């Protein structure tokens, strides 16, 4: 009896000890390291700040609710100041020195292209969180933002139907602008429309008197404005002052650059855009999300789509890791290949497309009124990022590590 009791005590003690040591082992598990590169200095700071905030908010929320696979997240943010060389330096630093488990960030396409060769030589997943000109077929990269087939093949037909077949394009003279203009030409051709003028503007140009006159000479029905950066945004103010008064469409205005908050009305009057996110969405999930954001960052002028996508990126990473039960890129890609790498985001459900590793989005067409009020004109529902898959990019079979455009398609094999 005595000895039996003793035995029981010992057994109980051993059991307790094991449990204790297990929980100690659990708590000591190192945090997951998330490397983040966002410009919060320099020209692009006004777009980079919301991206940093979105990541910080997501990390805080995930950590509060128990982390990923029980591990906390440690966010390591470096500020490349808009310099591509710094992107490379810091990309290497995060990957080789801090040995992060996932890399997120980059604003311009150039910064993404600076990072890709470095990421491709590791087995670390990389999330790019901007809407962009599309076409990157790379197994290491997961794109969270909207792409042209989601934005232009909705916007342009609508604009043609509503305003007419003649369009004038003003675009920033670099890859994003040129490839977007290429998309416009392709879609307009299919619609039987006419591009009455195309003007490419060097980055940093801020004076548009000549452009405004060229537009008036060409007499378009509407304008496609894919000008980029703070300097080029001056176009809207100058066009309004010259009483240009044309309907405008864009893939980057309003939800991304929040020009309707930065300019005095009615400079952005009659602007149209297709967006997966804009702060004026008023579904219950979106309202809840906005409330959490503004509680943490009360000074935020506008929650733009980049910041929102950056927030989603961490939840997508969490979903992938938890489904794969692993932080290895190859295991996560197996989850993506099944096609149910999905999360319930504030816009609705979004999933990663297995072939291109880009994200499906619920797209809405919005318009800006004379007092800069935003109205939803049409809800397209969920649109898949189908284009890369159609032209022959299939990351489940082959890793191309290339960027395609309508003029630069994969070689037929």
């Amino acid at each position: 009896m005595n000895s039996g009791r003793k035995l029981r005590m010992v057994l109980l003690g051993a059991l307790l000890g094991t449990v204790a040591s297990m929980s100690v082992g659990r708590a000591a598990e190192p945090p997951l390291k998330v490397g983040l590169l966002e410009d919060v200095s320099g020209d692009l700071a006004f777009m980079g700040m919301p991206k940093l905030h979105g990541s910080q908010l997501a990390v805080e929320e995930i950590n509060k609710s128990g982390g990923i696979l029980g591990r906390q997240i440690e966010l390591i943010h470096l500020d490349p100041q808009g310099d591509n060389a710094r992107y490379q330096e810091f990309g290497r630093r995060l990957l080789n020195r801090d040995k992060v488990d996932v890399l997120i960030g980059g604003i311009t396409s150039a910064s993404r292209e600076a990072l890709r060769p470095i990421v491709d030589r590791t087995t670390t997943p990389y999330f790019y969180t901007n809407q962009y000109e599309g076409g990157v077929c790379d197994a290491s990269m997961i794109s969270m933002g909207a792409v042209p087939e989601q934005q232009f093949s909705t916007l342009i037909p609508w604009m043609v139907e509503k305003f007419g077949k003649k369009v004038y394009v003003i675009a920033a003279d670099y890859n994003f602008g040129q490839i977007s203009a290429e998309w416009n030409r392709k879609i307009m051709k299919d619609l039987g429309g006419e591009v009455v003028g195309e003007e490419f503007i060097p980055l940093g140009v801020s004076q548009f008197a000549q452009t405004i006159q060229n537009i008036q000479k060409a007499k378009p029905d509407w304008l496609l404005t894919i000008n980029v950066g703070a300097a080029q945004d001056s176009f809207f103010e100058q066009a309004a002052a010259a009483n240009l008064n044309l309907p405008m469409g864009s893939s980057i205005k309003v939800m991304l650059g929040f020009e309707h908050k930065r300019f005095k009305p009615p400079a952005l009057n009659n602007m149209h855009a297709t967006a997966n996110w804009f702060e004026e969405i008023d579904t219950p999930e979106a309202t809840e999300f906005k409330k959490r954001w503004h509680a943490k960052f009360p000074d935020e002028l506008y929650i733009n789509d980049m910041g929102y996508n950056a927030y989603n990126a961490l939840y997508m990473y969490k979903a992938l890791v938890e489904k794969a039960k692993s932080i290895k890129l190859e295991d996560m890609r197996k989850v993506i290949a099944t096609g149910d790498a999905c999360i319930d985001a504030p816009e609705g459900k979004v999933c990663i497309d297995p072939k291109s590793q880009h994200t499906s989005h619920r797209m809405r067409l919005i318009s800006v009124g004379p007092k800069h009020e935003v109205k939803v004109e049409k809800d397209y529902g969920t649109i898949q990022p189908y284009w890369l898959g159609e032209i022959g990019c299939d990351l489940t079979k082959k890793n191309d590590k290339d960027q395609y455009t309508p003029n630069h398609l994969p070689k037929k094999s």
Partner: protein
Amino acid sequence: MSAEVFSVFYQFADVFAFLILSAAGLAIVFGMMGVINMAHGEFIMCGAYVTVGLVNLGVPLAIAQILAAVTAGLIGVLVEFLVVRRFYKRPLDSLLATWGLSLIVTQSMLLIVGSAVRGIGTPEGSFAIGGYTFSTYRLVLFGCAVAVLAGLYIIFMKTRFGVIARATMQNAAMAKALGARTGRIYAISFGIGTGLAGLCGALYAPTMTLIPTMGATFVVESFVTVVIGGANVLLGTAPAAVFLAMIRMALNASYGQIIGQIGMLVAVILIIRVLPEGLSSVLVRRGR
């Protein structure tokens, strides 16, 4: 037809105003004292931000613009006293000092004011000729550019201060020996220069996006204009602006902005090759 003629004039006036307004301040600072003011763009930014701030407080635009120019001028005098004063004997080092200053100012503005400021909108008013509509405010800018040139001419050619300033510019030691207070002349001239930069920012503030790095869009054009104007800035800057504006406008109109930008820079290279001392050297020679 008359619409086309007017539109050519309008485009020329627009580029000309941009070049003159952005270069006038630099011309004084660089031409008078040989200081390479890399913070020129930041004085422009200062003018723009002060204007917007005052307008948001309810001050009428025109008054806000004048106050902004004055503010930039006073800050300029302060900067001259604290920093620039030490560099008259070694102007190339002023490049490093003012560049450091410009880094500090832009980033501090970002930290203090935030990354984006809401614009104030261009004053109402447009008019139509033929099929074109034009903004009235752009013509106001042209008027201001001409007024700035006239004002500089009067200050430096017709006043006592101007005579002493030009004497100091020619030979500082001699002027000092003759009793001119060169230190004060330099401070005032620097203040006028930065005040003009502030004026440029104030005038363009309603038409542009305001970000802390906005000054950078003015800098290349202003340096180029001043340098091809040559050593005698009072004589050289205006013809340089006329010349560059014509090239830029013609190329912009026929080949688009990118060729306009490249073409202007190529023109600069060629002009300096032909006239290594700048445009004013020819004008001065003619004058003699």
